[in-house]
């Protein structure tokens, strides 16, 4: 896989405050790269430099081989940028809005008409083409903004918090769109603090804190690196002591903690098991429980893993 975005020793300083600190990372062509970090970690600064809106203090970024400092126009041609706000022009219809930005990218008028129609269909706004931009819902505006960034058919999409402030349905729609765009061959570089997005769609993740990259790479690899132990959530009918005895004998089990809180039916026990082992070992635990004639109601690996990775990686330096 070839590298399309290359951030090289990037540093950005605002007065005394260091926003980005010697950041180096690479994004492969076709990747969905989730840029995760707490507020103020330097995500937006990095993206603004990438989109040629801001000069770095030192270091540089290359997009498709073009340097943001030396060839900003070539970079702009390759990049579609969606900031974390929606720029509204009142007095403009959806179609005119899209057409205006397409025209700003030097697309000839004859081409624009068909491109705009296609883009509106892609983001499912064809039925609102002649409505005023102002009257769209937030989710629709976000989809329109996405269509706008696609007007010049860029290879790289740089999206700053694309899912923030959206209701769950709108969020899912944006997420699906991103996956669809990745399938079309676009490289997507987006920032977020909604970890569910990262877990579901990203192929690569970079965790940023205090302007420094604290973890980066493939999500599964990172999980193994940062979280050597897995957490199992087990619910069963029977006595707590018996369950603890059975689980305590299994190699690899680090701790068994009864889960407090929530509605517990009589006779049912809810446990959280910290565990280090492979998938086969996980199934062995289940087998052991069944063999001991414990009635298992619920057996699952904890879904809050990405959050744990995040918390593990970031030490809360920013706040």
């Amino acid at each position, binding site marked *: 896989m070839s590298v399309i975005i290359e951030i090289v020793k990037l540093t950005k300083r605002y007065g005394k405050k260091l926003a980005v600190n010697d950041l180096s990372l690479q994004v492969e062509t076709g990747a969905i790269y989730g840029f995760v970090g707490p507020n103020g970690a330097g995500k937006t600064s990095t993206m603004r430099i990438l989109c040629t809106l801001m000069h770095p203090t030192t270091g540089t970024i290359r997009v498709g081989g073009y340097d943001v400092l030396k060839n900003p126009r070539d970079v702009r041609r390759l*990049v579609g940028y969606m900031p974390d*706000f929606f*720029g509204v022009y009142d007095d403009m219809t959806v179609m005119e809005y899209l057409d205006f930005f397409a025209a700003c990218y030097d697309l000839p008028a004859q081409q624009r008409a068909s491109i705009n129609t296609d883009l509106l269909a892609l983001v499912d706004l064809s039925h609102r083409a002649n409505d005023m931009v102002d009257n769209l819902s937030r989710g629709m505006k976000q989809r329109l903004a996405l269509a706008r960034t696609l007007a010049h058919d860029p290879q790289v999409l740089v999206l700053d918090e694309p899912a923030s402030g959206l209701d769950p349905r709108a969020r899912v729609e944006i997420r699906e769109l991103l996956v669809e765009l990745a399938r079309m061959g676009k490289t997507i570089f987006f920032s977020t603090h909604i970890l569910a997005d990262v877990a579901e769609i990203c192929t690569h993740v970079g965790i940023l804190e205090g302007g420094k990259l604290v973890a980066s790479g493939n999500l599964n690899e990172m999980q193994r690196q940062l979280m050597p132990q897995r957490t199992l959530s087990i619910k069963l009918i029977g006595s707590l002591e018996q369950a603890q005895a059975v689980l305590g004998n299994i190699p690899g089990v680090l701790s068994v903690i009864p889960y407090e809180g929530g509605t517990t039916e009589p006779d049912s026990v809810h446990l959280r098991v910290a565990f280090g082992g492979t998938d086969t070992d996980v199934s062995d635990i289940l087998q052991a429980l069944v063999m001991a004639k414990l009635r298992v109601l619920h057996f699952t690996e904890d879904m809050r893993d990405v959050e744990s990775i995040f918390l593990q990686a970031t030490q809360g330096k920013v706040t």
Partner: protein
Amino acid sequence: MTPNLRTLTTFWQTWSNRLGFENPLLNKELRSRMRGRRWVFILTLYLALIAMAILSLYLAFSSSSSFYTDERQWMGKAVFGLVVGLQALLVSFITPALTATAISGERERQTFDLLRTTLLRPRSIIFGKVSSAVAFVLLLLIASFPMQALAFLLGGVAPSEFFISIAMLLVTTLVYASIGIMISTFLKRSLTAIVVSYALILVIFFFVPILFWTFTGISSSILFSTPTPASPTREVLFYLAIGILLCLNPISAAVFSEYNLIENQRLWLVEIPLQNGSSVTLPSPWWIYLLIFSLLAILFLYIATWRVRRVDP
């Protein structure tokens, strides 16, 4: 297409592009502006104001005893002067407000960053904004032409006077517009940008006349109160200085040019008699005004473009 036609088409496309007829920003601004009801209201109000002023002038003149050719000519001049005055007033009030919000407004709507990440060039952004403002003012000026034409019906006004007034109004509009947009690129908030633009215009166009009167008063008392006649060189230098100052304000430039045209029948030049009997010939203020302020407008637009091109440090 024949090769000739193709060359012509390419020629047209290149130049229309260069001149900004295909400027997306200009296109958008014109469309949005004409969509708003506000501007229809302003246009109507402005035309009604001119109509009422002309009507009251007409009534005042026609009620006087006789209505001879000579008086009609004066009335023609009065109508012409009135309309030009109202046009100038309009230009001064509307133009800075139109462009002072141009860039700061984009910042406030958070669309400026979007524009800057597109391939739209900084000079196209400035050109689009300024030309849409100038085009709108031009529309207002042209809309008042029919009423201004009443002056020709009454007589006493030469076509050259009309063309000079249009040229001066256009250059003034351009200067106001470029001051507005230049200020707009420096300030974050539209309201402050408008206030500062008007303030700067006041300084340039009204501080200078005050300077002019002070200067004339002091130097003429020194120059002409002495019993011995002043040396011709000093006298010429004095007239030259006054001449330049006259050219720095549209009203003084226009009034003096008009006076020169009526009294001496000279359009381009002014002849001033000296104390020793000879005379000195200087250019008429109106075209020096056009020259100076066109250059000033170019300077302001250049600064604005530089500001838009600038990447955040």
